[in-house]
């Protein structure tokens, strides 16, 4: 005669614990995959600015990053940035260089766009609008969320690439042309995909669009 086996109390607790653990792991796997889950969405239609002509909205997968431009500090650089925004040349641009918790860089028009990504040349592309003179400022502090124009190791080589700092980088003061500051959505930039071992990102995240605030 087969005797029916009855689970002891401790076995029942253990079994229950294993089920909870399994459910938790299963749900976490899907929740954590969504890097945008804890990002608060900004409704840009509710935002008001004193000078909307100097506000740009960068749309990324996790939401909108709002940047205020500073033409009074770097008039030529800001004008170039606005031109590239209005021509939609930044749309689809790759964040190909990401230094974890330090900065993200995008804006290679020629070789760093989702439509024509060239890993062998990325970072060396041109906009076709020519190089700009560096507009350095000893007053502008590269605090968290500062936007600067990238350059080569030489000054006066600014073109289209820009970076956004994810922490204060005092040594950049007076070294890079300041474009402006992020005023909303800095946490979105923290979700941008990093390289595993290098600062250059294989299969990077892209800018969906950058638009002037007034045109939204």
């Amino acid at each position, binding site marked *: 005669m087969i005797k029916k086996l009855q689970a002891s109390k401790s076995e029942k607790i253990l079994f229950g614990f294993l089920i909870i653990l399994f459910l938790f792991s299963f749900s976490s796997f899907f929740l954590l995959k969504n890097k945008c889950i804890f990002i608060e969405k900004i409704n840009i239609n509710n935002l008001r600015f004193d000078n909307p002509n100097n506000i740009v909205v960068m749309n990324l997968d996790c939401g909108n990053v709002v940047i205020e431009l500073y033409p009074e500090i770097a008039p030529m650089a800001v004008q170039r940035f606005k031109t590239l925004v209005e021509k939609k040349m930044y749309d689809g641009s790759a964040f190909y260089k990401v230094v974890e918790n330090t900065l993200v860089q995008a804006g290679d028009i020629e070789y760093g766009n989702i439509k024509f990504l060239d890993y062998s040349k990325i970072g060396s592309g041109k906009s076709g609008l020519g190089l700009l003179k560096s507009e350095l400022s000893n007053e502008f502090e590269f605090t968290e969320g500062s936007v600067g124009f990238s350059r080569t190791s030489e000054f006066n080589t600014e073109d289209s690439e820009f970076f956004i700092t994810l922490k204060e980088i*005092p040594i*950049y003061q007076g070294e890079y042309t300041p474009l402006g500051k992020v005023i909303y959505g800095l946490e979105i930039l923290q979700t941008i995909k990093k390289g595993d071992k*290098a600062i250059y990102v294989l299969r990077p995240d892209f800018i969906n669009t950058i638009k002037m605030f007034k045109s939204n």
Partner: protein
Amino acid sequence: MKILILFIMIFSISNVNANEIYNLLKIPNLEVYKLKSNNNIRYLNAVKNFQIGSNKNITCDKISKKNLSNKFPIIEKNINRYNSNFLQKISLKYIVLCKNLKISNINTGGIPDNKKRTLILDINFNQKNFERMIHHEIFHMIENSFPKYFNEKKFSSFNNSNFNYAKCSTCSDRLNLDLYENTDGFLTEYSKSVPSEDMAEIFSFLMINKKKIKKKIQNDKILKNKVNFIELNLSKIDKNIL
């Protein structure tokens, strides 16, 4: 295959040196020691040993905080003798402090890099002549920025016709930095190595002990011409340095 090599180069070799100082100066393992100064010089120090250069032929070692805090006031005092306008003209903004600085395994006091606006200084180099060495290296930044003012051929013509410099600064054993009692056209043995080192030695002595050099040149016509040459051309860049 080419693509594979390219991927390996881009994504594996450009590596963890990815901090903001490295981005700027292309020297790894540095931290900021002092960022703000009256003449806008920024001081950095090595927190780990580093190797730079195309063949990693420049090496320098990390320094302890204690060593640095002992030497830094001396370095800053000497660098503060140059105003920000002058330093901008000679493309100097960053001073990297480390020890056991070597280029191709040869010890050196400093390595100037005008392109990166950086001067690497060995804080343990020749303690007897340490302060003068700072100005010596600064001179190399000056001549690199204004080569037309410090023409080696013209400078060499002040020497006796039978004198020949070595082919390079480390190609001879003329390395002693002590001031000659009888100068005879040269302040130190190292002055005899190459014209640019001769000029740098004169400049550094003028910065450290101008009175003594002025006295020496009274009886040394060659040296007098050389000193005048340095002073005249330097005054074209900044009248107040010497």
